[in-house]
């Protein structure tokens, strides 16, 4: 099934408008899957602004879109400068190795380790973006 062209265009716009963009299940304040929660936790430690999109309302159509854009259909997904960085596994590896900090142009946090607990209640990032379902 081909991707919905309107949704794909919207996604491409959002990727263009956000240097760091996270597609996740749920929101940064309330992640709805363990992998999404872990990826948010990593981004919080990076102390960088990011956009977040809750994929749950538009899950299947969005899988088609990201499948076409990046050949990647599972969530969460992190994009930096419009390019797919990866899912939770890849981002955690890059976080621990310092590559993520380098990619984002921030300082590697001390005692960097992939978090296993819930993100802080008051995250410092731009509000999550809502994309209307197709």
């Amino acid at each position, binding site marked *: 099934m081909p991707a919905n062209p309107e949704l794909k265009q919207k996604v491409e716009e959002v990727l263009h408008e956000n240097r760091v963009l996270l597609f996740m299940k749920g929101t940064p304040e309330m992640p709805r899957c363990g*992998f999404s929660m872990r990826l948010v936790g990593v981004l919080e430690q990076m102390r960088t602004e990011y956009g977040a999109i809750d994929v749950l309302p538009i899950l299947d159509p969005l899988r088609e879109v990201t499948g076409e854009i990046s*050949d*990647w259909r*599972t969530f969460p997904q992190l994009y930096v400068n419009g390019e*797919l*960085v*990866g*899912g*939770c*596994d*890849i981002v955690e*590896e*890059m976080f621990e190795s310092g590559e993520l900090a380098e990619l984002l142009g921030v300082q590697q946090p001390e005692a960097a380790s992939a978090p296993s607990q819930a993100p802080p209640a008051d995250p410092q990032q731009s509000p999550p973006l809502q994309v209307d379902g197709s």
Partner: protein
Amino acid sequence: MITDALPGAEVEVVDETGGGDHLRAIVRAPQFEGKSRVDQHRMVRAAVQPRMDDGSIHALSITTKPA
């Protein structure tokens, strides 16, 4: 399935929840040499796609290492 798609790979699969549907695959393969992590993950994912499509694997964590 992974070694079929990636001959010569060393694969370890761990069942993360005991239920058989949340798996972690640790894959070391010469085919990963010089490829980005995203590409390495795509290769592993492509190898197990039928199991993801039929729902028998719900979540797959992947760790890849070049040989």
